[in-house]
């Protein structure tokens, strides 16, 4: 049901020069999250809706005895929800501050290894909502890969800043 991301074995020596990203799609846009931030990719099943929760929280679910909070990434990107049946849902499991979250995405892409330092800064005219969580952008052959900071996507960073 869930596929652990196998740590790629042939690039251990390139650690200093290569960044590894798990990519995923929302509509046709490709996003990347550093492999190190990701626990697993799984099909979320039987999500329990949480009444009164913020709209981006789709609910909570049981993933091998742990309770995972499912986050609707489309909602965070201000995109309309997609009509999907439960079976085909995909989620990326991450852990923040000791809590488990599942980011619900459209579909998972490949694991990409990209050279460090070859990325571009975030353009000035980027949608401010997107700017918040984008750390860098890679130019792939045919499209642009947006690298996400999950903590910022989930507002943890801004929250702690506000608290400070």
């Amino acid at each position, binding site marked *: 049901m869930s596929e652990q991301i196998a740590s790629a074995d042939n690039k251990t020596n390139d650690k200093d020069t290569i960044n590894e990203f798990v990519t995923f799609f929302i509509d046709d846009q490709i996003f990347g999250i550093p492999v190190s931030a990701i626990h697993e990719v799984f099909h979320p099943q039987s999500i329990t809706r949480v009444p009164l929760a913020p709209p981006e929280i789709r609910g909570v679910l*049981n993933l091998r005895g742990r309770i995972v909070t499912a986050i609707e990434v489309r909602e965070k990107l201000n995109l309309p929800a997609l009509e999907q049946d439960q079976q085909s849902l995909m989620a990326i499991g991450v852990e923040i501050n000791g809590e488990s979250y599942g980011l619900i995405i459209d579909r998972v892409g490949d694991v990409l290894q990209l050279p460090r330092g070859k990325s571009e800064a975030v353009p000035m005219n980027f949608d401010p909502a997107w700017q918040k969580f984008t750390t860098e952008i890679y130019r792939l052959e045919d499209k642009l890969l947006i690298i996400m900071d999950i903590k910022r996507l989930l507002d943890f960073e801004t929250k702690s800043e506000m608290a400070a």
Partner: protein
Amino acid sequence: MDDLLSDFLAETQESLEVVDAELVKFEQQPEDDATLNNIFRLVHTIKGTCGFLGLPRLEALAHAGETLLGKYRDKALIATPDTVTLILESIDKIKEILDYLTETQSEPEGGDEEIISKLVAASEGSMEVAVTASAPAVETETAPVAEEELDEAPIGFDEDLDRDLRPGEVSLADLEAAFLAADGPDLDQLAVEADEAIKQEEDKKAAKKEVKKSTEPLKIVQTVRVNVDSLEDLMAMVSELVLTRNQLLQTVRETNSDDLKLPLQRLSSVTAELQEGVMKTRMQPIGNAWKKLPRIVRDSAKAVNKKVQLNMKGEQTELDRQVLELIGDPLTHMVRNSCDHGLEPSDIRVAAGKPEAGQINLSAYHEGGHIVIEIADDGAGLPTSKIRSKAIKNGTISQEDADAMTDNQIHRLIFAAGLSTAAAVTSISGRGVGMDVVRSNIEQIGGTIDLKSIDGQGTTFKIKIPLTLAIVSALIVETRAGKFAIPQLAVVELVRTTANGDHRIETISNARVLRLRDKLLPILDLSEIIGEPAEKEEKGTGFVVVMTVGEQTFGVLVDSVFDTEEIVVKPMSDRLKSIEIFSGNTILGDGSVIMIVDPNGIARQVGSLNDVEQASAKSKNMTSDSETKTAMLLFFAGGKEPKAVPLSLVTRLEEIDPQKIEISNGRHLVQYRDTLMPLIHAGGAPSFNEETPQPVLVFTDDGRSVGLAVDEIVDIVEEVLHIEMADNSPEIIGSAVLKGKATEVLDVGHFLTLGFHDWFERAAADQETQETAAKRVLLVDDNAFFRNMVKPLLSAAGYEVTAIESTSEAWKLNEAGVEFDIIVSDIEMPDDNGVDFANRLAKDLRWSTVPRLALSALEQHDLEKIGATTAFTDVVRKSDRESLVSTINYVLQLKGEAA
């Protein structure tokens, strides 16, 4: 850290706690040898261990303390509060050094000459010198006065050493005696010391084993110190095991596989035992959290110069150590509060006729899966008016709210955040500092706190907490929005409601209520609370989960109820913590995740109006005082006009199967609760339903019931009654406008006599066997309806009742020389008020000896007025018929005895 050292630290910490408590006890009862021996032994053990671990500074301190204690034990000296304070100081010093040791694993630099010399001085009987001298290290060989006094036991000189003792030193003979007198652990300690001296190179752990062995013959329960973390891990794993077992059980139930059933059953029982066993290892007596309290009470009582006695009950009550840790601070805080603010200074207490020493009673006991801790003081009670004005001032409540609140509700405001932090309240009223923190700490562990304060008699806090945090049993319920878990802790009972059954939910001015036994229970719809209300009018049937949080009781309406499950509480994600009504989530046996409802969160939704009675009291207060609302039951019975009876007179509403209605001797009867109940139709004609269930209002009095059959029960309304009197028909008191319609108000008394012809006569006859002459009651009430309701009631009870509507009529009767045995008066009347009336009566020549009874709705403003006078003998609740009669009986009986 060195194993030995850490063991020593842990052990010593515990011993010191005991010493603290025992010393306080000793101070109060200096003649109690057992206590003193215990203290001596503990201090001695500490000293011994210190010496052997090479901690000279601690050793010297403990030694000096021990010397002084030795004197007490030998009766050479008598303990005084000052010397006990000194010993406590030295214990504090030892604690300080221990803390330092814990951090750095070595003793801090410096010495404790000052305190040691004081201790020595004290042990040589010259306490005065030591405490008055500000300079340390007084060489106290010269304490002539003391030595003369104690010539039997010259302390300064030691024969064994053939020289004077140095400060802090104790004579060998004394030591010997001390060792011999002390039992058990002392010898062990000696054994350890001896062992160590001989085989210093030997492994220290071996020595420890030696100690264990030597304790065996003493039949002491063997214990092993276990790291708390390993216990926690064990607990977490057991929790997971419980979950997995639940999941397995569910699966097997679904697949119905017989092969698995037996092993699973065993797994299940083993898991349950394991869970219980692990829980047990985590259980500790609550006395552990109380140990430091006597000392705290003693110190704070001393600081504010009060006499306080702390009584503890139920120290052996066990609860989870995690819970124990979490309640430690709130408890300390509250006990200190009771001491500082709850109890009055001695002179005020004496003036108020209370014993000089204030009492703080601490008790703990089990109550259905949770623990109740009560902290009660016999102080002055909470200053209601000050809290009220303060709360209004800082905006916690509005003036209108404040007027509508009962004293108890006002008292609860001390748990509100804004109120407690204000220093102004502390200085005038005390109490309240950090009570919000106390509350939130207790709520965090799923507990509740409530208080009861009686002016002049004290305040009682009641804390209810679960035995353990990790696994709780919860009721699984379902609404349209899904399943939820409600912790059993808060659940009192379940009531099934149907659209027209015994228990149906009624609406009174937009508030939903359930008539449950004698109470109106406010009802909240769980689907509404969670923001997903059900479609209108769909809610005919369902379950009401009756919950109690603090002193609030309310019902939560759900669609269906599953079973109870042991659930493992898992904390909610950070992103969901802001949702007040959930406290956590859990995984059910079927693997799904559900949210755990927080009873405290729901209680907050109920708000400060914790039952409808108060809600209606509030609306009453908003209308003018003289217009009291009465709850009326509306129904149809023969004819198109609605009819009504006061709700307070109705005992039950029943639906009776028409098949069961029997006719005997021309009367309709039905078997009801093992007796025959006469049925009378409210419409007059005997036109009972033939097919459909017959709705019946049941009136019960004195063990007998009469059923009043009606066509249809319509509603319950609460309105101000203006009854237009009717004069033609006996069954009708009059008519009133209810819900915008003219409604006939029936005279229940009339129907009762129809049911039992002797209804009133029998009661009167009963009465007459006891009393030769009927007692004469004067009833003064401006409310005609009420007079009409009460008069037959009192007549039925054998009294001769004169009912009048104003006090001026009463004076006319007085002038006319009419005599009465008792006067029952309303408080609020248009032309006079009952209090003035009573005051004047008390001075009246003719009627001053006649007992006066106040009739009241027992609302705030009434009670205040009644409290302002002593002219009333007693107060009785207006709507409570039974207690009216019994109070009158009682008062008359008293008078009879006095005469």
